[in-house]
């Protein structure tokens, strides 16, 4: 079994009209055994920037701690929050520093940039950035997520419709993946508010 499939994960981010949504599943497993059903994979960096980390859970937590540390330093020095594009480059650099002994994670970065323009991107475990205008996916259910998002996505969705779409895509995809599931955390971020919802799905 691949090291990326040790814990099981599913993370997806989608762009809407002046908003974005980021979602993850809730299962934490140790190979076939489920160990937690409320595990968080999407973390806040600042009010308008979130990072979702799929892959090996220990590396996801370590990488999150490193990234938060670097962002806090940036805030102290620059007296402002980091832009999502800058943050994506930061994550990319942190990952590439470990080029020959990598973190086994695939981050998904989502934020509102200048003029509250939504920004999403994903990187592989070595830091190669992939910017997308529509959606990005990662985790053990990534193939299913690609298919579901490709079919269900349309541009310029309002926050409520975006929430429905990303939830349906996530649920349909993790239902076909044994290593992810047990519900989902879905965050919809607009310039004025952040709504986090916990969705219940097949509990297996």
């Amino acid at each position, binding site marked *: 079994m691949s090291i990326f499939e040790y814990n099981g994960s599913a993370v997806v981010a989608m762009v809407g009209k002046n908003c974005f949504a980021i979602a993850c599943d809730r299962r934490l497993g140790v190979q076939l055994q489920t160990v937690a059903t409320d595990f968080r994979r999407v973390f806040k960096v600042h009010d308008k920037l979130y990072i979702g980390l799929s892959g090996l859970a220990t590396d996801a937590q370590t990488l999150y701690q490193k990234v938060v540390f670097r962002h806090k330093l940036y805030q102290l020095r620059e007296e402002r929050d980091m832009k999502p594009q800058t943050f994506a480059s930061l994550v990319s650099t942190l990952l590439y520093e470990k080029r020959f002994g990598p973190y086994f994670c695939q981050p998904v970065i989502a934020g509102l940039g200048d003029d509250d323009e939504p920004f999403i991107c994903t990187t592989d475990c070595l830091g190669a950035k992939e910017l997308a205008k529509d959606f990005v996916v990662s985790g053990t259910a990534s*193939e*299913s*997520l*690609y*298919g*579901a998002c*490709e*079919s*269900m996505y349309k541009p310029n969705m309002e926050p409520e419709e975006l929430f429905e779409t990303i939830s*349906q*895509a996530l*649920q*349909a*995809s993790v*239902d*076909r993946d044994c290593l992810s599931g047990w519900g989902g955390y879905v965050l919809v971020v607009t310039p004025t508010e952040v709504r986090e919802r916990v969705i219940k799905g*097949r509990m297996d």
Partner: protein
Amino acid sequence: MSRRGDWVYENNGGTCVAIAGADYCVVAADTRLSVGYNILTRDHSKICELADKCVLASSGFQGDIKALHKNLAARELLYQHQHNKRMSCPAMAQLLSNTLYYKRFFPYYAFNVLGGLDSEGKGCVFTYDAVGSYERTGYSTQGTGSSLIMPVLDNQLKSPSPLLLPAKDAVTPLSESEAVDLVKDVFASATERDIYTGDKLEIVVINKAGMKREYIDLRKD
């Protein structure tokens, strides 16, 4: 894989889908044949008509698939001679399972989806693994794009899902044209993200009037 002197299979890619309705069955497959990163042809049918109400779509190693289809067609002809009627879809389903398991220790590298009308005229879809394990479901997909398509079909066709327990009626309440539109949509999505799926989509619709074939263009990249 090709460096080993004894590796006898190759994957020619492609995706197959089938959806069963109350009085129809839709079976579809793309027409791309690939080896590695190359396309051998954009115009290769993965669908075989085994009987007047029974159609088989297979993806995987086309060498084994050609042999399998030939084998089944020959057995169907024998059945016709012996029983003076064509094979029904559920009978063909069992025959396919047995044929695949016959080669349990040197399998056909074929991922099959069998679609048609059962003896009552209701749509039926049977899905297989490479060694003959099969299940009657309301819809299924096999091949390189199957993991992209399956969740979308689960989402749109909840009632005949194999994931629901107790098993509900194995046909979808969608109309024939809605099912064909759904098939076109899912293949368009799979073509975007799967390199082995594309070029053209061949759709076969079976209902009591007979069999109808349609070709739709897909992205060629």
